[in-house]
């Protein structure tokens, strides 16, 4: 079997004296989509941020395509982050830049492209997420769904080998969730390697290669959607999902 594209090994993270991640390990193969689920406070966001070193773990290492990432070298760190993209729950678009420039800026600053080259790519990426006509609008002029799609285009422009998504639809009005999920679905079909934290169980069930259930900083269960979510399987994951859908019904 080929080596996994990305391996997280024994990641430990403490925040304000509190142990948030307790030796979490996870491998992902090229083209896979892994879905992280778990109750609020389980450590999903912390884990995803450790994966591209927005947070520095106290212990553990990360291996990209067989090479251990050496975070002591800034150069290697920056180059690693280019290869592992990140999508945030609240978009984090650059407010002073148009959609096009949001996508283009890292190409220019990080990859050293000319303005024209960068904008060409930005056009293509916006087109890919269905926003070719919104390029000249500023973040404040876009809907939440459009913002998240710009953020995805921005990450894709760097041609990442792995894309991390931290609840990309949680901050969206329900009617806007679909447009973002459909973009992610396309990416999965194109074979982009992704790790995604989400509460969208239907999406996970349909597309995930593996579901990873986290609780209190540990991976409790993992497996294919079919095996974990099967009626009456008695897994914690199934239990959690039932509670989740009950809650949704109550709200409705």
């Amino acid at each position, binding site marked *: 079997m080929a080596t996994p594209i990305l391996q997280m090994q024994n990641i430990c993270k403490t925040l304000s004296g509190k142990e948030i991640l307790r030796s979490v390990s996870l491998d992902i193969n090229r083209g896979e989509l892994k879905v992280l689920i778990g109750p609020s406070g389980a450590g999903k966001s912390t884990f995803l941020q450790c994966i*591209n070193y927005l947070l520095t773990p106290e212990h553990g290492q990360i291996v990209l395509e067989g090479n251990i990432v050496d975070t002591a070298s800034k150069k290697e760190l920056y180059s690693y982050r280019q290869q592992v993209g990140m999508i945030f729950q*609240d978009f984090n678009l650059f407010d002073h830049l148009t959609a096009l420039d949001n996508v283009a800026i890292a190409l220019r600053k990080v990859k050293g492209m000319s303005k024209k080259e960068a904008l060409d790519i930005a056009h293509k990426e916006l087109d890919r997420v269905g926003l070719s006509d919104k390029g000249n609008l500023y973040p*404040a002029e876009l809907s939440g769904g459009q913002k998240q799609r710009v953020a995805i285009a921005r990450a894709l422009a760097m041609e990442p080998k792995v894309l991390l998504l931290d609840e990309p639809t949680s901050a969206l009005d329900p009617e806007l969730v679909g447009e973002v999920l459909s973009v992610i679905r396309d990416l999965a079909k194109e074979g982009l390697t992704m790790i995604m934290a989400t509460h969208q169980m239907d999406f996970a069930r349909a597309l995930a290669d593996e579901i990873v259930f986290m609780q209190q900083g540990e991976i409790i269960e993992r497996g294919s959607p079919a095996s974990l979510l099967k009626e009456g399987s008695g897994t914690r994951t199934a239990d959690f999902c039932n509670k989740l859908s009950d809650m949704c019904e109550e709200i409705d």
Partner: protein
Amino acid sequence: MLEQLAVVLDALPYILQGALVTLGIVGGAMSLGLVMGIPMAVGLVYGPRFVRFILGIYVWFFRGVPILTLMFLFYFGIFDLLGLNLSALSATAIVLGMTSAAYQSQIFRGSIEALPQGQLKASRALGMSDMQGVCSIILPQALRLSIPGWSNEFSIILKDSALAYVVGAMDMFTRTHFVASRTYEHLTLFITAGAIYFIITMVGVKLLLTLEKKVRIPGYTT
């Protein structure tokens, strides 16, 4: 009445030359304050503890000590010790500039902290260095937010520039006083000078307001 008008008209070229000196002082001080204040603000927000400590002391010192004392301290003390033979005008501009740097660093710091910090995270996630993130993502937005505070600072420095007289810089206020001493038309002359200060303030604030509108981010409200 006519006599007073004659005195004012007579003195106007001399006083207006002083207005140029005043503008020179204000321009120099604002620029120095800007050039120093921006990196100071970045250091105050993102710097390591000891950098924040040093900058904190700087800000505390320049905000706490009266400008008059600072002028004496630098003009008759520190500049001399350093062997700098500065003109009264440059000395005033530098002292006001260093003071303004303390205030401007606080204006910029406030603006930086008012920004959603996720944007810096996003820039890091794209492989930008912190330097690149701060320079091309944080500062362009923080500076926009700082314009109102900056125009405030402008009118304050403009008035402080009248303190130039203590080291003998021939600014507008000093010159007005000289003419008044000769002509005994204090009230008329100082009203004239006040009007000129007022016009300079108005034009400056108006220009900054235009700038603020010009660089406004479409759709953006805070």
